[in-house]
């Protein structure tokens, strides 16, 4: 009795202190530099079995359902942002750099992983996580200020909007590679599994499309989408692959085929935040905290910084060739901050594969470093206070 109540009181205390801290910082004109998602991981850890013990092992096993649904939902919301109509309107070179820069970052991480002897699927998964961007950080830094270099700001935003796509695609391939069904004993090749993964996404996408057709009530749309995403999460869990890429396919079908796509996007967004927070809290609660892989930490930190710097140079060069000069130095450092998609992919990586001990801790530590460096660079070079001169 005491355990549960204390845990709830801790949760409330965390929230109250967080609010007070945010208000105090805002009064001094400051913003907390860390990713918001990390605070939920910390809350989860505080509530977990290693601290106050609100989530004993049996409850965590049952709540795995929420984790699986949360991952599918992140994929769905991401897929809902892939509007072909918008993509077609972009200039060809925008599309090219949008793909190329994240691929350079991912390749750099994958290469570092191979060189340091990581298993291929793990190296590929880490590459996918490393590619995932955080457009929200850019917007957060720019809030209340003006861009010092508008071209650089727009280019970073463009890459941020695009990079999720190769990240999720890469992650889909990695998750298939890591599936226990892809072992010889089950008689399924990785290509067959990849086809199943995409197939499930397409079938569920069209099923959702038919189910929500003509439905106006947001609560009914959200319930039906929960139903289809729950099914998708179940099917992919039984195949031993991650639900996120399949759900992305479903989301892409929905947004491009639905009668009122933005109604769907709105209701999907309304549930995204609670599910992501629940997901992070549960991952924090299940965190064993016993392993830290320096190897993976090094792969992510070094690989990502190198990839981002190379990507930044390529981006600046391509932009210059098309008459968009970039003045700020070290553009790639603006690609370092990561957000909830990266955390979602990381959670999926930890969830679907065995043999990923120490990955969560190492990647989260690397993310914090990237976040701090990226925000510092953005604050120094990319934005300036309203009415001020370039920083």
């Amino acid at each position, binding site marked *: 009795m005491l355990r*549960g109540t204390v845990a*709830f009181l801790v949760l409330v205390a965390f929230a*109250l202190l967080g609010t007070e801290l945010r208000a105090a910082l805002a009064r001094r004109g400051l913003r907390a530099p860390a990713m918001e998602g990390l605070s939920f991981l910390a809350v989860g850890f505080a509530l977990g079995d290693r601290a106050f013990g609100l989530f004993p092992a049996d409850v965590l096993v*049952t709540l795995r359902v929420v984790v699986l649904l949360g991952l599918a939902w992140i994929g769905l919301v991401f897929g809902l942002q892939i509007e072909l109509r918008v993509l077609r309107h972009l200039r060809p070179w925008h599309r090219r750099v949008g793909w190329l820069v994240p691929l350079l970052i991912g390749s750099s991480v994958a290469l570092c992983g191979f060189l340091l002897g990581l298993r291929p699927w793990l190296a590929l998964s880490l590459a996918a996580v490393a590619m995932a961007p955080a457009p929200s950080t850019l917007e957060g830094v720019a809030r209340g200020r003006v861009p010092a270099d508008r071209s650089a700001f727009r280019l970073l935003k463009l890459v941020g909007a695009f990079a999720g796509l190769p990240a999720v695609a890469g992650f889909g391939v990695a998750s298939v590679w890591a599936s226990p069904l892809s072992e010889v004993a089950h008689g399924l090749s990785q290509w067959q599994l990849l086809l199943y993964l995409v197939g499930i996404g397409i079938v569920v996408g069209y099923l959702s499309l038919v189910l929500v057709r003509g439905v106006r009530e947001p*609560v009914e749309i959200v*319930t039906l989408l929960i*139903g289809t995403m*729950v099914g998708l999460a179940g099917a992919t869990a039984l195949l031993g692959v991650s639900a996120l890429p399949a759900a992305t396919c479903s989301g892409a079908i929905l947004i491009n085929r639905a009668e009122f796509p933005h109604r769907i996007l709105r209701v999907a967004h309304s549930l995204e*935040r*609670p599910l992501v927070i629940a997901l992070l809290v549960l991952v924090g609660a299940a965190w064993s905290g016993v392993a830290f892989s320096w190897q993976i930490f090094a792969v992510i930190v070094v690989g990502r910084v190198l990839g981002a710097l190379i990507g930044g140079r390529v981006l600046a060069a391509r932009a210059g060739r098309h008459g968009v000069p970039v003045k700020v130095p070290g553009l790639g450092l603006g690609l370092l901050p990561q957000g909830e998609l990266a955390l979602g992919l990381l959670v999926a990586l930890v969830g679907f594969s065995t043999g990923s001990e120490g990955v969560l801790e190492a990647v989260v530590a690397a993310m914090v470093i990237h976040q701090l460096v990226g925000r510092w660079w953005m604050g120094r070079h990319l934005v300036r206070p309203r009415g001020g001169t370039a920083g």
Partner: protein
Amino acid sequence: MRWFLFAVLAATSWTARALGVGVVEDRAGSALISLSCLIIGGVLSGELAARWRLPRITGYLVLGLLAGPYALGLETADDARFLHLFQELALGLIALTAGAQLRWRKIRDRARPLAAITLGHVLGIWLVVAGATWLGLAAVPFLGPLTAAEAVAVATLLGVIAVAVSPSTTIAVITEMRARGELTETVLGVTVLKDVLVLLLFAWVYAAGRAALGDEPLDLSLVRAVGIEIILSLVVGCGLGLVFGIYLGKVGRHLELAVLALALVSFELGRAAPVEHLLVCVAVGFAVRNIFGRSSAAFLDALERSAGPIYVVFFALVGADLDLGVFTVVWLPAALYVAVRLAAVWLLTRLPARVAGAGPSVVQWAWQGFVAQAGLSLGLAARIGRELEGIGERLATVVVAAVVINQLVGPVLWARALVASGEAGREDDDGRPNGRPSIGD
């Protein structure tokens, strides 16, 4: 087209699991597929029910009944056990809603009718149904030959179970119909009060029944334990309500999750301590609504936003728990039991309401809000079945069969009563606008 796709989905998931080809052993995955069928099928059957001018939860219940382990087996018994936590969490959220609907000022104004109907039900229905059962046992000996003491014990136990209602069904129909008013508040108040008193009454009758059936001396420690449990639940609930109210006022963010955390905490408390987790939730809802009046609107909004998916999942799972098979075995005693209970509910609601000076809508329609039975009755039946040797199992079967009927008929009657009384779709006193639905809206 939608039903066809659902049928294909259900058939595919059923076949895949029946064949068990090339899948990983993952209980969560299997449970999710069941849950998906229940949610999608629940929404579709809810729509169908609405088209037939029935409450949506009837659709959810019927779908669950058909898809459950006792019928088509789209959801297996293993999945049901796995999803039990979600059922409990949903129940916690519904209990929070029930508590939040109770306003002290209104309860105080309607204290007489509330007390009269509650007393009429707890004593009247119990005695009427117990008496009728005792007479019926002689005419239809469905439990086999019983001694006089056994017959009295069985009759009193069935009498107590007849008093129990389903607060979750009551509140779900109120939410769906967006009902406000004297009838709504009186029925809800009596339902919550009865929920507490039935626990006490059952503990007392159960102890007496065990003493009558065996040679054990009358042990009233169970009654004392239940009494302490109720008081402790209310105290803990009010405490948590105060903390939650401070959170609402100071933070006011991520309310859906905070509410879910509250339900999870009360569930954990119920598992680990001598408290009834539903009562804790009712007390929390009541405390937040009545102590933190201003900020409680956001709390109610958060509960309402989460209501749709929760009701589908909860009632589909409740439906899946109902065993249709037992109905074919004991349909006659179950039908008689239902009929006697219905008559007792009708008489012992109208009479006390009239005597206590309740409004005409309460006198005329309130009885229809006390027909549905679900979780509490099934829980009491399960306990009887488990612990009373010999006749317990057969007795529990009759109760389950009766609950199947009451749970299918109850929501329909209650929804019709709300529409007929004109309380469906009324605007809230807080000024929060409601739609004006009719049944099936």
